[in-house]
């Protein structure tokens, strides 16, 4: 079964799946991962949002593309320095600093890639520089930070040290307005792309907020979105969108035209293989099962299909790129990420 459409302009080859559900507080595996950043050395940092029962395990896990689990950092759940309650997204700057948003504590927390807590900033409110539910975050080529301020329906631009520069947006569905926006990314020219979550579209702005374009509308057709959560733009200007509500990823051309659709084609991760090797009874039954079932009509929605079609994306909350042309799709509900290579 094909789970990817084709395009004459771009092709993505499935590489592998990394991850396994982590039910404890330490060790390899992920707990409702929400975002990924990859450093120049190829280390993959995975933000674990965690559920309330495992809130003490909120952390960033680190692994490599070769399935090596390097460890994790974080200080658990709470509002003390270095802690998180509802972490959402990460951005990595050129100084190996990771900025992590927390939509519950209304702050940006900074760690370095060695896992050392540096500082945090952010004050709840609606004034310039104040935050109400910070979600997506990204860094432009100047090192300035863009934060999606979801409940204030705007994007705010800060210096790397958290000094307010400018903001734009208001609540609504017109150009330049937002409805619970989530993800943000910049392209090679430092234009800013925002996944305008509840308006089912991607909006493109200049570096200081001048509206440039809007892509997509509500729906399940190609080029349409259902609650897009995350956006990323590669060096050629292709726009990758986590079409979360449709449980898929879409790729748009630089002009916003539809190019490619991914539904997910996860295979067994190395960590998963090791689990099954030590649980032969489960493995034997799994091998004779059909994990791509045809479902009854009342379950024929993307969410339900993905809930019982294991290879498909389920909760594809984030799309991230590295400097090698790889795409990382973070799946909250499957505790893993799928890796694709741009041809």
């Amino acid at each position, binding site marked *: 079964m094909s789970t990817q459409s084709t395009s004459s302009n771009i092709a993505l080859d499935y590489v592998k799946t990394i991850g*396994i559900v982590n039910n404890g507080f330490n060790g390899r595996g992920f707990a409702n991962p929400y975002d990924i950043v990859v450093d120049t050395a190829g280390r993959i940092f995975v933000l674990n949002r965690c559920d309330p029962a495992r809130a003490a395990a909120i952390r960033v896990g680190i692994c490599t593309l070769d399935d090596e689990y390097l460890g994790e950092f974080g200080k658990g759940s709470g509002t003390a320095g270095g802690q998180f*309650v509802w972490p959402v997204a990460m951005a990595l700057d050129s100084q190996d600093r990771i900025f992590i948003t927390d939509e519950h504590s209304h702050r940006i927390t900074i760690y370095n890639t060695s896992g050392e807590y540096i500082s945090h900033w952010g004050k709840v409110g609606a004034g310039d520089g104040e935050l109400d539910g910070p979600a997506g975050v990204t860094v432009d080529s100047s090192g300035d930070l863009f934060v999606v301020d979801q409940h204030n329906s705007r994007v705010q631009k800060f210096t790397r040290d958290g000094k307010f520069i400018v903001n734009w947006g208001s609540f609504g569905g017109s150009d330049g307005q937002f409805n619970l926006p989530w993800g943000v990314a910049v392209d090679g020219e430092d234009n800013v792309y925002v996944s305008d*979550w509840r308006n089912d579209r991607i909006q493109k702005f200049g570096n200081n907020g001048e509206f440039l374009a809007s892509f997509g509308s509500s729906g399940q057709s190609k080029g349409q979105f259902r609650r897009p959560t995350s956006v990323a733009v590669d060096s050629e200007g292709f726009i990758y969108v986590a079409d979360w509500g449709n449980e898929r990823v879409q790729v748009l051309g630089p002009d916003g035209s539809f190019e490619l659709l991914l539904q997910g084609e996860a295979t067994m991760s190395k960590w998963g293989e090791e*689990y099954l090797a030590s*649980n032969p009874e489960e493995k034997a039954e799994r091998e004779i099962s059909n994990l791509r079932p045809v479902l*009854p009509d*009342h379950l024929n929605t993307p969410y339900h299909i993905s809930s019982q079609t294991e290879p498909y994306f389920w909760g594809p909350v984030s799309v991230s790129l590295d400097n090698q042309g790889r795409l990382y799709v973070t799946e909250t509900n499957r505790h893993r990420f799928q890796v694709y290579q741009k041809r």
Partner: protein
Amino acid sequence: MINNDTALMAHLLRRAGFGASRTELEGYMAMGYDGAVDALLNPSDPGNMPDDLIRRYHVEQSELRDLAGSAAYWMYRMISTTCPMEEKIALFWHGLFATGYAKLNQARSLLNQVEMFRRSGLGSFENLLVELSKDPAMIVWLDNNENHGSAINENYGRELLELFSMGIGNYTEDDIKECSRAFTGWTLGNAEYMAVRASKDSIWPYGRIAWHFDYRDEDHDDGEKTFLGETGKFNGEDIISIIAKQESTARFVATRLFQFFAADEVTEAGDKAIQEMIATYFSSGYQIRDMLRTLFHTEYFRSDEARFSRVKGPVEMVVGAIRMSGNYQNPALGIEKVSDTMLYMGQGLLQPPTVEGWHEGSEWIDSGALVERVNFAAKELSDVRSPGVRSIIDRLQASTDDGVLEPSDLADRCLDLLGPIEVSDETHSVLVDYANRQGALDLNGHQPGDSAEQRVGNMLRLVAATREYQLA
């Protein structure tokens, strides 16, 4: 003096819903009683908190891997719905066709079952039983995945007759066997793998895999069967068709509906209402909606005798208090703790104690549960920061000419706005005595959380602690 029309509407909404704030009550009053009954029985847009919002903030309610997040998800639905009957009927069937998490370890499929109750719970009972028999959570719960053409497992067949339709004494052991034969081959997709995962509570490698129905023709016993005096090569649907037309089934369904929606105890007058519901069962083609419409229009239901004749179940108690307080209208941390509270009161959503469901009525009340119930309701309704309580304060002020309430008026109007709740003379004098301690209440210029508002909060706390508040 309580307005009787208002009291009757409040009574209807305690049964067909979870009680009502005064604003909700006024909306239904505008429809008139008959219009309100029709609106409640014909849910359209439930207007509940949308799934996308819930999933965005609550990863545990997006994945639905564990019990806590799943129960909390249903809580949100019940708290925020504008079609309370849809959730109430789902809760009714959840108690009757009691399916629990403990054996399944599969919360997503349990919630799919609840969704099926929403979808089909007011329709034909015959159709509902077919859907129930195809429900993967029920199949695993009562071992129908182990019911094979070559070797039957009677568990589902037995409970279908005993607990889900006709009731004991209306069939034979042979009927159970024949019924079970008819349901061979009714299983779930990847049944063997899912059974292993369920038995091991396995979440590996990638979390749970939800379930769907699968019919295995090769595992179905297609031979001739004799069931309740009829003979044929029956499949499951045929068996249910025979069950549905039994008088005992009609009485069973009518009685259970009556005890959930009308009164814990069936009096002589109540039995007359049940008889009317039985007649409707047959005349309507087994439609639950029509049976309830009949019930809500019976003389019994509209009489004083039916009011406050049920002990609120823990879910009704908790959801009703939160809907009144107006809290949790947006996704928020802590909702999972609220669903835990119901468990401490004796009713954990998605975790009935056995296939027989919960023992209801006065059995909800023991000393531990009562403390939990009173503490929860009193805390929820006395917080003057809550939007629903703020609305009550505003209404209290608006009900006076000069913003000043005499102590007895404070007690009476709090009773009115939380219900109306009818209390005994003894309870009433306790409330008035309490209000008298501080004299008249001046709400002019009241500010959030000031002493005047706090006096209202304290009175609401006291009302929530009365015996009468425990009743629906």
